């Protein structure tokens, strides 16, 4: 497991030990991982870093409302099938053979899920990222169950396609709706929290090498206090990185004027900005030793 954490760190992803353990177990037990956490804590980056660290190919499926089997799994290439039928008609060879041919893998358009378990032209192992699963409909969850449990998908015309090499599967969700128990019980579950101060400093230093140490520490402290407040959209890690990058660009100091000018990097909601610019911001700045 330590090797995996080190390999992730080499890609710029600073994983803590519990996350390293989950990823290690997922590999050893060949189980999917369900990652939940607040937006911006780096759930998607886990899969990207895992793919890079293990030399695997990342196959990503971004979920959205209305996502269906033909977007995620496979689709028949209807245009080519029609063309083949016309050609056969012209040649006078329409028959059972044609019927078998047009429903063969030659006319199958592979979508991400099928591509992950049965890649056509790449021997590398696969990390399948099913991102923001809670955005998809419940029917789509049901579609995933066969893949998550048996690493296989069923195409009615072709039969069952089983993974030649089991991919590592990472599912992420933001809890905008509850996921089914059936899906949860097929996965290892991990809640990805906001990083503590020390780990966030490490993350920033990994992303922005050469940043002023004092600036990074104070900015991360301030962000931590913001997250403890009652903000609608608490800043995630990428917001912290963007903000420190912005502060570095405008002089590399942390004072209340610059905080106000660069606040849009941290808070992305009108109510939150208003709240911060009221009494709450003064309190946070005072506690963080900025004002």
């Amino acid at each position, binding site marked *: 497991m330590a090797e995996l954490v080190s390999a992730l760190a080499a890609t710029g992803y600073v994983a803590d*030990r519990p996350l390293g353990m989950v990823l290690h177990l997922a590999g050893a037990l060949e189980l999917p991982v369900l990652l939940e956490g607040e937006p911006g804590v780096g759930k998607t980056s886990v899969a990207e870093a895992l793919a890079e660290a293990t030399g695997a190919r990342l196959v990503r499926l971004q979920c959205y409302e209305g996502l269906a089997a033909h977007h995620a799994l496979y689709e028949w290439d209807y245009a080519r099938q029609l063309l083949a039928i016309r050609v056969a008609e012209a040649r006078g060879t329409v028959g059972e053979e044609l019927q078998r041919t047009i429903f063969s893998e030659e006319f199958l358009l592979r979508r991400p899920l099928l591509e992950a378990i049965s890649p056509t032209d790449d021997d590398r192992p696969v990390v399948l990222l099913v991102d923001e699963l809670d955005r998809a409909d419940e029917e789509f969850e049901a579609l995933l169950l066969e893949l998550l449990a048996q690493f296989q998908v069923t195409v009615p015309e072709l039969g069952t396609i089983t993974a030649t090499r089991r991919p590592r599967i990472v599912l992420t969700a933001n809890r905008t709706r509850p996921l089914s128990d059936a899906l*949860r019980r097929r996965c290892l579950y991990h809640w990805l*929290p906001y990083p503590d101060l020390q780990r966030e400093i490490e993350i920033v230093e990994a992303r922005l090498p050469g940043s002023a140490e004092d600036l990074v520490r104070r900015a991360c402290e301030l962000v931590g206090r913001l997250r*403890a407040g009652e903000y609608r959209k608490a800043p995630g890690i990428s917001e912290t990185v963007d903000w420190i990058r912005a502060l570095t660009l405008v002089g590399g100091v942390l004072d209340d004027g610059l905080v106000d000018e660069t606040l849009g990097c941290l808070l992305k909601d009108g109510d939150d900005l208003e709240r911060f610019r009221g009494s709450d911001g003064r309190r946070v700045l005072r506690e963080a030793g900025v004002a």
Partner: protein
Amino acid sequence: MSAGDLRRPVDRGGVRTAHLARAREARARRTGRPAQDVAVFAGLLRDCGATVPGGAVARAVRALGVVPLDRAADVRDALGCTLASDRPGRRLFDLVFPVFWNAAEVQPPVTAADASPAPAADGTTADASRDGSGLDEAAPRARDRPTPRASYGRHHGGPVPVDEIDGRQVDALARRFAAALARAPGRRRRTAAAGDLVDLRSSLRHNLRTGAELLVLLRSAPTPRRARLVVLCDVSSSMAHVTPLFLTFAHALARHAKVVEIGVFNVELTLVGDVFRGLPRSAALRWLRAQDSALAGGTRIGHCLRRFLDAVEPRLTRDTVALVLSDGWDVDEPELLVAQMRRLRRAVSRVVWCDPHAAATGYAPEVRGLRAALPLVDDHLDLSGPPALRALIDHLERTPTPRRIPA
């Protein structure tokens, strides 16, 4: 320190203490064989209300085979990701794990409940003092109405009881409630004998039998619009006397209406829509009791409404009706509640606020929260018992939800 750590619930209703006591009892059943102990531990989690998936024990035992058993943190992480399947389950796991697996006796933590002021001599405590603010509201409330029952959990370490009430009666009323909301006319139309418009297409088809001579004109009427519903149910101490009715009604609505989400709240929000839809009433209420902060305590309506809207706002449509079951006691600033009520009102077509005190003789809302929220409420109605529930449904049947396009 994460935001989640700061907002971790304290021991409201003594639930945390009860979990720790169960963990100590379960520890006595340990056999020393890892596989059996993992099964006992999984049983403990289930007893405490966590959902431990089927097959999780076997998976956990397999996981123990690939981690160093001499590293407690690794064992904990391995068991955590295999036995817990959601965040509340993981919190519960983190609570009972050290008690079950450690040899040393673990003292129950000192909680805010333990540190709260002693109850009054008569065994009751005004809400304001329980909530730690709102002293200006306590006097008129105490004068007008009997002092609300004190939370058992605050003073004696047990949960507020969720009594059994006539579920069948509430079920029937919930069906009527759903039908009443669906009475508002929708955009689609269907043939109806007393419809307001001529249905030309149906008339032509119908009269084909007479050579397309239009002898009979069929009419059409709008189909009732299926209203979507969000329910916010206050289960704080001041609502203890109506909590059983509210929860039973909310559970029945989850079964019979098109419910988007149900939230129960006191100082924190718990989303229960999925649980209420999926479990029978007794099991759902047992699950709710097992949540750390789900019952009793003070009330932060503005804060909880914000959390609720953050979670469900993308799913709210112009057909959605918001049902708030609360007496309006709120320790948050009224500005927060007003801002969130505006947000709610923008997102839904109708806000119905059910207040157990609304029908009291000479009642005028004096609670800060309710006073602030009322201008943004479409219907402020009494819901103090089943008769009031029937009256509420009568009112909804008489006044269909107007079509409103949210701003």
